[in-house]
């Protein structure tokens, strides 16, 4: 008689995990190096042309969709469900998705929505980029240029309660997302736990910075609040419906997938090429 509860509890072990409709898939994403040629403008309206600097590369958004369509935009875009509003696109109802590089708080208010992970190797690298490439040195709480990597590190540790560089997501020495491969930048990518249907498509885009080095996929009004002495602002965060309504966020200068693979098996390796520049 005592064995009955044990037998009942063992019923849970009959679950077969292979019945899950979700899988992990892997592949690569390629972006033409030409995407790295951009123009920026500083606070004094000086225009600078930047060529081939991988640190300008914005976050890459990849989604898994039932299919793609032509004609809704200048670029190929995911198919959508019914349009429920006169002012908004229909929802794409994505199966899954991921990013290659993501928006991250750069420890100073000036860097809200201007920092992408997987692009910088060190604090010095970030300081150099802003001072010598964007010509907009990072300013500290007092409005003075951040003078050293040590000062930058100390502020990051203070504001975020960090104890080691390992916790600073936007500094990944030797672990940058993209590598150069001929005329392309190439990154390995995994899309975890995506719903699977034979024939599903992998589509995406890279959000390239505007002339003021802002990213349209980041909302400066969202994110965790910073209340640090006299500083009060939010850290910025991605919009939550980027893959559901990508057309709202893809702007001029962004590069969009034009070679869109379909997946027949979870073991298929995909290669997405973001080869179309949206003007």
């Amino acid at each position, binding site marked *: *008689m005592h064995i009955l*509860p044990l037998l009942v509890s063992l019923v849970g072990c009959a679950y077969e995990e292979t019945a899950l409709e979700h899988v992990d898939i892997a592949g690569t994403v390629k972006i033409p190096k030409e995407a790295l040629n951009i123009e920026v403008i500083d606070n004094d309206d000086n225009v600078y042309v930047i060529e081939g600097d991988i640190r300008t590369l914005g976050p890459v958004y990849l989604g898994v969709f*039932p299919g793609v369509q032509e004609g809704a935009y200048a670029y190929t875009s995911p198919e959508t*469900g019914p349009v*429920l509003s006169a002012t908004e696109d229909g929802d794409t*109802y994505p*199966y899954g998705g991921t990013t290659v590089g993501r928006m991250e708080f750069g420890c100073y208010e000036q860097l809200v929505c201007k920092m992408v992970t997987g692009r910088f190797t060190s604090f010095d690298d970030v300081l150099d980029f802003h001072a010598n490439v964007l010509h907009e040195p990072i300013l500290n709480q007092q409005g003075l240029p951040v003078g050293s990597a040590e000062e930058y590190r100390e502020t990051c540790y203070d504001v975020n309660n960090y104890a080691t560089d390992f916790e600073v997501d936007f500094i990944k020495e030797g672990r940058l997302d993209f590598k150069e491969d001929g005329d392309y930048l190439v990154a390995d990518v995994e899309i975890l736990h995506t719903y699977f249907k*034979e024939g599903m498509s992998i589509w995406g885009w890279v959000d390239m910075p505007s002339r003021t080095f802002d990213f349209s996929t980041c909302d400066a009004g969202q994110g965790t609040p910073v209340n640090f002495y006299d500083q009060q602002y939010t850290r910025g965060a991605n919009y939550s419906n980027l893959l559901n309504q990508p057309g709202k966020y893809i702007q001029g200068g962004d590069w969009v997938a034009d070679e869109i693979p379909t997946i027949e098996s979870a073991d298929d390796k995909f290669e997405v090429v973001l080869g179309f520049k949206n003007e």
Partner: protein
Amino acid sequence: MSSARLFLLALLAGCDRNASDILPDYKSDLPPVVNIGEMGVLTMGEFAELQAELSPWDWCEGATGGEIPGLEGEYPGGGPRRCIYGELGAPELGVNGGATFNFAGTGGEVCVIVDPEAVFWSASIAEIGRKDEWAYPDDTLDDGDIDMYGGLSSYYTGSPGIDLGDFIGFYTDSLGRTVEIDYSECKMDSGYISDVARGGRAAVESCTIDTTGREGVSFTVVLDTFSVPLNDGVLSFGAVVVNGPCENVPNGITECTLRGESQETGGGMITCSDRLEEAFCAENVQGFCCANPEMCNEVVPEGACEVEGQPFDRDVFCAENPTLCCENE
């Protein structure tokens, strides 16, 4: 007795309760599912007229200026009814109750408002740091709640007046995967979290529905009975549709936007309930309840009428707030 049998018996102890004690004993003769029919869309001017009315429930029985094909002559003046002050009975166990009404899209934004029963508040019971304003306890037995949904009538799954439905539909993508879609276009903003929210017990609910490009198209609003007052088994409410977004409603949408919705069984405002709403909006509930305990809770907890340790003086209060004392006309 073996330990295994004892364990099984212990599990069964939870089955001796069916929660019927939290349902109203009193069953009114009022129907639990009601179809109100066609409702007009008031202009902001008409809405101001309604708010100034001493008998808003009578005013609602009139017709709006607009006419709807097939409904000519339905109400004096030819158009659909202006608004509704209605009542719902308690539904049977396991059945959704509520009311539905339709309105025609104006081609722009409209604001839908429903206000069930009078007001509810949580009593402040802290020994230290008590909020005197909310120290007097609400009578929780006279509160009810309605949740509002709305969208295109073509997506509505219910049978008006027979059973309540929803706006859930299904979309099948090109690979055959079916996705559930909520076609409801009445998204509530609670002020605390964005998008979908609910007003809570006896609280007013409102939402803006954008009918752009759908002028003349029929929309359905569902007033879903969430809870029925335990004291009489009748859930009374007021509802109205106003032309324009809800943020354009003067003074915002509060418990005082629609007044007098708390009604006696069979109709007629519960005497002085409009003054309770006025006191609630003026954040003078403690004074009102202490002056008119029959409107809040006959049993006055010790100290509930004290303000900063001083006893409550009804005469002084009524002299200072004549509209908040029930016997004053």
